[in-house]
């Protein structure tokens, strides 16, 4: 109840403050157009934002231990969040700074026009790729190496159940979490990339074919896609995977292959929709008609006339699809149908360690165990989205 009252009080303060802010602005600047024509909601936003910043600062500055000796979990987690975001932003800033001063003229120009979010995204993707390509170099221990002590907490402080040898702690059977996180990058990213590329091949070719031929070809493909899309994706994937696990056992085909194909086929329906609508827009152009009347073949039409113009939306969709496929793999693993042990995977790690979230109030360090793999997923998805946003912004400009 008191929380609700607090929220209402803050809002009321912002309403009154916004009104006063605008009034004072008008009086002190002799009615300059900026304050004179300022809508009330804008003034409200300024004041509300100021109050929020103040509240955040107060939360940040509170002591980490309460008087009773219990850790102040809210402040601790808030500080971690602030430090993480500040650290990532600093890394992104330095990366962009380096990019602006090192390299060719072209790459320097690219970095000069780059927003900080995009530089964060690119840096993250590069780091993930390096780690995924050679996990053995970075991981302190092997993927399935088991140590004596399970459930070691992060940060290596022996007083708080930590161990300097396992900086991020160990899991339920004593495997090093940092090493598992690093090996999982390879497993998850490889499957996500393969599935996305396959989805684009299937969906892209079918979509452009439907757009060019139209008529019954279009109807047949589109209706089949509608049927596939009508079944809830996750349930369908679980169903197909359980059927496939039977085949995998009886024919000795690796389960990973089935997983890639199943995810790709289900995701290709979304790619198909995009490819078809983009294709329809381009096929209606006069330059396609001119090429048809010249007598050009289908292959030339697709590769030389249509694809170059469809590239920007395709690239953006590729980034987004990659994120969704990635999340799908994590969800499947979390549900126990994805990547199987002993291979490391972020989704599985979240599931196995999820119980520690309950200790957040009393043992903030322990609660981090499931949050590390979750963070690994979140940061990559965020990074890809930032880069996609940036490409979209660039390609929708006048150059498009």
């Amino acid at each position, binding site marked *: 109840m008191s929380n609700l009252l607090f929220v209402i009080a803050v809002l009321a303060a912002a309403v009154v403050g916004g009104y006063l802010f605008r009034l004072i602005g008008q009086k002190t600047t002799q009615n300059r*157009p900026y304050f*004179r*024509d300022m809508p009330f909601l804008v003034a409200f936003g300024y004041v509300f934002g100021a109050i929020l910043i103040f509240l955040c600062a107060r939360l940040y500055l509170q002591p980490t231990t309460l008087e009773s000796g219990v850790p102040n979990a809210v402040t601790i987690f808030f500080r971690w969040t602030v430090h993480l975001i500040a650290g990532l932003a600093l890394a992104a800033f330095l990366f962009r700074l380096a990019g602006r001063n090192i390299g060719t003229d072209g790459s320097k120009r690219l970095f000069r026009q780059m927003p900080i979010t995009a530089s964060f995204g690119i840096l993250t993707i590069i780091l993930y790729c390096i780690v995924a390509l050679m996990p053995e170099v970075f991981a302190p221990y092997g993927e399935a190496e088991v140590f004596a002590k399970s459930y070691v907490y992060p940060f290596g402080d022996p007083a708080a159940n930590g161990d300097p040898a396992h900086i991020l702690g160990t899991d339920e059977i004593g495997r090093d979490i940092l090493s598992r996180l690093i090996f999982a990058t390879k497993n998850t990213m490889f499957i996500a990339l393969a599935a996305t590329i396959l989805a684009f091949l299937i969906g892209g070719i079918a979509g452009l074919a439907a757009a060019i031929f139209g008529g019954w070809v279009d109807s047949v493909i589109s209706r089949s896609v509608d049927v596939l899309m009508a079944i809830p994706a996750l349930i369908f994937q679980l169903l197909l995977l359980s059927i496939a696990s039977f085949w995998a056992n009886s024919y000795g085909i690796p389960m990973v292959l089935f997983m890639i194909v199943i995810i790709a086929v289900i995701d290709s329906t979304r790619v198909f929709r995009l490819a078809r609508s983009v294709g329809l827009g381009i096929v209606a*152009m*006069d*330059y396609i*008609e*001119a090429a*048809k*009347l*010249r*007598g*050009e073949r289908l292959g030339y039409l697709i590769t030389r*006339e249509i694809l*170059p*113009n469809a590239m920007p939306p395709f690239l953006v969709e590729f980034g987004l699809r990659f994120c969704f496929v990635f999340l799908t793999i994590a969800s499947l693993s979390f549900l126990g149908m994805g990547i199987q042990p002993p291979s490391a995977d972020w989704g599985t790690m979240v599931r196995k360690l999820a119980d520690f979230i309950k200790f957040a109030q009393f043992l903030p360090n322990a609660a981090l165990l499931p949050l590390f793999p979750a963070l690994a997923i979140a940061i990559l998805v965020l990074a890809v989205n930032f880069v996609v946003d940036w490409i979209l912004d660039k390609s929708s400009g*006048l*150059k*498009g």
Partner: protein
Amino acid sequence: MAEQLLKVRGLKLEGLSGETWTPIVNGVSFDLKKGEVLGLIGESGAGKSTVGLAAMGFTRDGCRISDGEVEFDGIDLVNASAAVKRSLLGKRIAYVAQSAAASFNPAHKLIDQHSEAPVQHGVSSKSESEADGMELYRRLRLPDPDNIGFRFPHQVSGGQLQRAMTAMAMACRPDLIIFDEPTTALDVTTQIEVLASIRDIVEQFDTAAIYITHDLAVVAQMADKIKVLLKGDEVEESDTRTMLSNPQEDYTKSLWAVRSFERPKKPAVNTGATPIVSIKNVTAAYGTVPVLEEVSFDIHEGRTVAVVGESGSGKSTTARCITGLLPPKIGHIEFDGQALPLDYRRRSKDQLRQAQMIYQMADTALNPRKSIGEIIGRPVQFYSGKTGSEKRRRVEELLEQIELDPGQYINRLPSELSGGQKQRIGIARALAADPKFIICDEVTSALDQLVAEGILKLLANLQDTLGLSYMFITHDLATVKAISDEVVVMKDGRVVEQGPKDEMFQPPHHPYTDLLLSSVPEMDPDWLTTLLDQRGVDNIGDAAVNKMA
């Protein structure tokens, strides 16, 4: 001496390009008295619309007024607060946009949109303004004025919509209306009706107006005085008659001179000569909707046949039948005396090569991701098999033929060219196939008059040097006069009249041809008045076309 209404002094505007503000309008001044009409003319990019909007104290996103004053009835509009502007716009100053179809909200009935402004400004009640709307519809000579307001925008024609929009602007009886190219998108017979209605109602209510257009003949009918703009600069201003009879500046004179281009007459075609293209009794339909009925005409070697008609008359469909994109139901196409397969997919490479096409919108006709060299080089390679330096030489030769410097343009993308240059690339691509016959589909209608003139002259020169034959689709009779040897008039999918150009422009005409010819505005400022006196309001434009049908 009428009362001063609008005073614009040294108006400068800037636009945001990238991250810097660049000037778009460099100091425009004018005065407007009550009931006076000012015509603003200039080519695209001259800043006409920007000035028109700034006269309302409004700028588009990414534009700003950097200097100068706009004073409307004593109110400083440049520094006026949003509240003051809100009380003026729609009530005392109204705006009529170029495309009425895009400016009406398709989800509401006309009369509801009409009464919005008066109710909002507290001028009248909803029922009063609806009754007034019907009265205005009557005065603007809309058909069935009592009920037309209860239709949705898509249920009335383009010309009617433009008049309904004028009525909407009149709803609060404003002191000033800005007309931004209100008739540019309309057919001539529709345009003439809209012009007559607008002029009438502006006179009746003694409303001042700024009439923005690129068409000199139109502005001559509408305006009391004319101001000419060029790239954001004032060229000159004077009253309409002086401006027409005695323009001072070179630029203005060049605008006036455009309409004088006409190529010399060619000798008559030998009877019995095989036409290069012959359309025989073509009947075609989109699905079950008939669009062409028994269309026949011939195009002889080295000749230009202009196909004229309003939108929807079947001109472009005829072109689609010739190119084979829409195989006719009945009839056939002969090329050099031999019947062509009806479907383009069954034609040989050589048959495809002989007939080329130039499109109306150069923007959609050129692949934006390919360089000029690739766009022109592809047909060269495709048809003649030339590659490497041989192909490059041919492309350079073609660029020279269309009067563009190869070294400068060969590596550019279409987006780096002006509208006229893009259209020239379209011509070069057609020439690259080394054709005998080219279909020009409204090739000049998206261009400014001076640029269009250049394209027409280029096409005429190419015809003389290469012996090409053209089928020239257009709705603009000035273009027909300039370039054609023979004329085919189409209406509702049928050929109404055809013959050599001289005969077509001399009476006696088919009644429809006569109507088309008489609807083309002339530079004479008395033209519309005289025409209305001679024929009466009900015998011009679409009203007369409908009577024929």
